């Protein structure tokens, strides 16, 4: 065996390979956003809140499947069916958790880049303001979809396995394969716009989350008071109510959203959909305008 060693000069070498285009660059920003929100490649304390909320959202689903396993064969299927939350009900079960998840995630995606001046680096790379913002929105959409879908998938597959006829259960509930994601998108659409808009102007993540939570709660109270005392259309200010109305419409389940200001004031789901689209459009416009000035 030769005992001769070699010293390699690890000098700079130019990258001569092919360059990726903007779609790949956008995808890199999406992946970075997902890692930020979930605290991946960050210190342990940055993982506590997101993963705590994920576990909280999963626990009821696991409990439901466990309950079904435990009660299987008791011969009280019809009685138990009423006790077990449906897929549309489950959006309600984790509604507050989803709301908090969005409240914490949106600032994480926008505030540090702006406050730490990382936007300068983005601005010096071959991408546009719209690329950056779209990728950040896509990152939030991905994590919110995963957050709301995972427990639903557990219930869906759990039900299929426990039914004793896996294929039959799946084929009999094919409509859920679009209804569940559509419900998750409705939740995202009603919450993300305002959360991003507040995050675009805040210098602290915690403050942005707090302002968003406060704004949403106050808007619901104001909507209820003004709808009752001034005009029923003020019910449209109940931001969270829109998600419930839309989920009820998607699942054809009128019980969802019962008691909300929007339902009590007979606001049609179509109007709710237009209101959500308008809020999202307004938020997108303001966000773009804001970032055009600072990036």
């Amino acid at each position, binding site marked *: 065996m030769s005992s001769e060693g070699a010293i390699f000069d*690890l000098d700079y070498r130019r990258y001569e390979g092919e360059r*990726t285009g903007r779609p790949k660059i956008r995808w890199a920003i999406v992946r970075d956003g997902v890692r930020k929100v979930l605290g991946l490649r960050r210190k342990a304390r940055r993982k506590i809140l997101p993963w705590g909320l994920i576990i909280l959202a999963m626990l009821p689903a696991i409990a439901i499947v466990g309950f079904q396993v435990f009660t299987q064969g008791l011969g009280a299927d019809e009685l138990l069916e009423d006790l077990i939350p449906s897929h549309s009900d489950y959006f309600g079960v984790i509604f507050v958790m989803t709301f908090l998840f969005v409240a914490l995630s949106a600032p994480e995606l926008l505030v540090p880049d702006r406050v730490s001046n990382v936007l300068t680096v983005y601005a010096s790379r071959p991408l546009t303001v719209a690329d950056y913002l779209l990728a950040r929105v896509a990152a939030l959409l991905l994590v919110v979809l995963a957050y709301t879908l995972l427990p639903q998938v557990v219930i869906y597959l759990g039900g299929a396995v426990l039914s004793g006829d896996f294929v039959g259960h799946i084929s009999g509930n094919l409509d859920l394969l679009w209804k569940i994601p559509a419900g998750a998108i409705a939740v995202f659409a009603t919450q993300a716009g305002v959360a991003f808009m507040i995050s675009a102007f805040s210098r602290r993540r915690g403050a942005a989350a707090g302002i968003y939570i406060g704004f949403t709660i106050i808007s619901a109270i104001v909507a209820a008071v003004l709808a009752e005392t001034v005009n029923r259309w003020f019910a449209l200010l109940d931001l969270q109510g829109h998600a419930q109305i839309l989920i009820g419409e998607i699942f054809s389940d009128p019980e969802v959203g019962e008691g909300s200001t929007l339902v009590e004031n007979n606001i049609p789901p179509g109007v709710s959909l237009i209101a959500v689209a308008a809020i999202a459009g307004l938020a997108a416009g303001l966000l773009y305008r804001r970032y055009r000035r600072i990036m």
Partner: protein
Amino acid sequence: MADPIITTAGLNMSFGEVQALQDVDLEVPAGRIGLVGANGAGKSTLLKILLGMLAPSSGGTEVYGTSAQHHPLAVRSRVGYMPEGDCFPPDQSAADFVSYTAELGGLPASESRQRASEVLTLVGLAEERFRNLGEFSTGMKQRAKLAQAIVHSPDLVLLDEPASGLDPDGREDMLNLINRLGDFGMSVVFSSHVLGDIERTCDWVVMLNEGRLLRNEPLETIRASNAVQVVLLDDPTAAVEFLRSRGARVTVQDRTLEIELDEGDAFIAIRDALAETGVGLRSLGAKQTTLEDVYLAEEEYSG
């Protein structure tokens, strides 16, 4: 001049009442270019306009023949930028961040990690690359900023005050790194208000003052001088009179004279003056012009 890599024509930029750049016409070749000027001279503004990050009030710029105003993304795909201030997420490791910026520069994800590691080693952060950027010292941050500027192999790197805030050793290391960038086939625009740093690293100088272009030429042209410097032992009055009678321009400071002669040899004129007046000579030589001399003279002239 070889094909210019940077061209500006009638460039003007104002921020409200403040005129940051005034009628800047430039043609700059590849190489190591020093962008010199006092704070507020318009250096950072010019760099941002070259990247298409700022739109000029009037005029235009081209980088490698591509308009930075009309095709900023095409320009940015060939240019790296090191901003003056911090630009880091403090909770991310240097390796993660530089790798990410490589992807933002158009490198595939599979290549970015390896490139980040190599470039961080090059800038002297091999040991620290897994530490969070928020824990870095000023010198380490400057190196990490340089790493993110070059990780995607740009043809041109714009460095905005890369040595600011560094101690003497850190400054030395940074200047050596900048010198090496040229060896790696990258052109460098290095903005600084420290003229000595530019003299040590650059072969072309763009000098700005209050937004106006003072000089745009090779460093050696700027440093070239016809003046002769003489230090005398005695009262220089008689020698100065003799030289002026021969048509020389003479600047006197104590017993030091700077002599320029449009026609004829200044050395022979000085020899004659000393022989005629009997004044003793301490030293004699061609005057070394520094960037500081030029900058101060230009500032005085334009001010």
